[in-house]
């Protein structure tokens, strides 16, 4: 600490001559969501300044893409954000389909929507649990994981994997779904709806929880827009921006769903938005399941090698955390010239750093948890 800040400190606890001191929170800390390091300048418990230090989970995904052919980047895509790996995986496929001009069969499109929304719910459930864990509530965490387990089981049956699904392929998906999948999915939707009253009684209405959340970690609309905050965090500031509605991709324009927003911009607003989003995802799933057509899951003619024309493509999807964009530049070879990922957590985390000032250590943990950053996604 001392050497970083250029101050000799023979007694590490003696402070800085005044009654302030620095606390190095992370990269190894129970609530830093991976390996974030927060450099906190504190007076007592009050934060005078907070500086996030990132990069501890940097895996050079973008550089790896430049050294592999287009197909070989597929497994990477679901590892950028391992909590909504399906959405990221399919986003990459869709970006490539746009670049290559491949048509996706109807059935595959519907399957993609269903698994994406399931993945979104599982990501939100995990967030719900870990956020409560940050606030010191352990039991909701396990209830949420119990529900999430159902999703993982459903997805495992179809994709063979529980977290990092390499389920998408350029033009479709690898495995077809069956009647049991449909049955299980609908059963899960019903189960989740049945669990919601419990969650509300245990968490949303809890007076302690409310006190920890309401009016804390305020990100106002202007700040959010300036930092490029997206996803539930932006919608919690009253901006109804959801890529599924704003720039519909895939077949999302066919579904009837709402974009939940909250005006307050505090932790509780973000919490409510995510809970409402789970319900909306359930609605989308029901509609997609009802409209699931028969047919192939991959195009008739499958190519083995992909060589896009010289050009570029940008494709953005609404991930569980916000606006996830993939920008691909092709020089006509089998390898992308450049592949850039626009990850929502990075922008969201930047905004967090701006609002941490003046809060307390306990709030820091709550705010960070409420924003739902996935550090490997920030570092990429």
């Amino acid at each position, binding site marked *: 600490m001392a050497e970083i800040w250029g101050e000799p400190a023979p*007694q590490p*606890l*003696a402070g800085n001559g005044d*009654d302030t001191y620095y606390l190095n929170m992370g990269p190894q800390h129970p609530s830093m969501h991976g390996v974030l390091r927060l450099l906190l300048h504190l007076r*007592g418990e009050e934060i005078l300044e907070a500086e996030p230090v990132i990069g501890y989970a940097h895996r050079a995904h973008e550089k790896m893409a430049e050294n592999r052919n287009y197909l070989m980047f597929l497994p990477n895509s679901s590892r950028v954000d391992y909590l909504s790996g399906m959405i990221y995986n399919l986003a990459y496929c869709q970006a490539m389909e746009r670049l290559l001009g491949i048509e996706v069969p109807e059935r595959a499109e519907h399957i993609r929507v269903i698994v994406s929304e399931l993945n979104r719910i599982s990501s939100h459930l995990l967030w719900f649990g870990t956020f409560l864990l940050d606030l010191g509530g352990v039991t909701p965490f396990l209830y949420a994981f119990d529900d999430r387990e159902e999703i993982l089981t459903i997805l495992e049956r179809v994709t063979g994997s529980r977290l990092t699904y390499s389920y998408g392929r350029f033009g479709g998906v690898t495995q077809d779904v069956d009647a049991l999948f449909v049955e299980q999915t609908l059963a899960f939707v019903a189960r989740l709806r049945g669990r919601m009253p419990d969650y509300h009684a245990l968490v949303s209405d809890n007076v302690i929880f409310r006190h920890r959340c309401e009016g804390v970690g305020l990100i106002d609309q202007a700040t959010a827009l300036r930092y490029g905050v997206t996803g539930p965090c932006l919608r919690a500031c009253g901006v109804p921006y959801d890529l599924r509605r704003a720039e519909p991709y895939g077949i999302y324009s066919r579904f009837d769903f709402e974009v939940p927003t909250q005006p307050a911009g505090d932790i509780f607003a973000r919490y409510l938005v995510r809970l409402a989003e789970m319900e909306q995802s359930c609605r989308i799933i029901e509609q997609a399941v009802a409209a699931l057509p028969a047919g192939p899951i991959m195009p008739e003619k499958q190519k083995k090698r992909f060589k896009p024309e010289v050009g570029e493509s940008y494709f953005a999807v609404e991930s569980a955390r916000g606006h996830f964009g993939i920008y691909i530049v092709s020089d006509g070879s089998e390898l992308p010239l450049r592949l850039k990922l626009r990850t929502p957590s990075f922008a969201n985390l930047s905004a967090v750093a701006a609002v941490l000032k003046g809060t307390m250590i306990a709030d820091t943990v709550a705010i960070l948890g409420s924003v739902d950053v996935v550090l490997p996604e920030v570092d990429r």
Partner: protein
Amino acid sequence: MLENAMLENVRVLGSAAWVFVALALIGGALAVTLPNILHAIFSLALSLVGVALLFLALGSPFVAAMQVLIYVGGISVAMVFAVMFAFALREGPAGAARRRRGLAGAAALGVFAALGPLIARASWSPHFARNDWTVAALGRALLQHYNVVFEALSVVLLLAIVGAIIVARREPPQ
């Protein structure tokens, strides 16, 4: 009194009390000599516990409990609390204080040398084993006989709290 010489040898405490005496004195000695001020405060607490045990042995468990509750649990904790957040912990260079230490030691020894023989030589007229107090008696004394003092003390405490808050409050940044 006639039997002075005899009475002086009457024991007020059992020999087990020497342990408490040792605790009080060693703790005290450490409290004034340890260079680290936090160590000094913890030694003070040790000494206070020793004194409290002496109180207990002297047949005043209520006072002993209060000593532990307020002195050890309150005052020394407050000292530690203040030191932890605000102060440069170690004292200045040791050499600078040597002369002062010498003088202080001389003064303390002088006082002891002056008063010790007096105590040793003075004749007391103790008549012992009066164990006729209860907590109720103590409370009655506090609230009836010493009522004014008691109330004054509570006012002093209140003023001390208010004063402490005013003095120690951080000036709002301008």
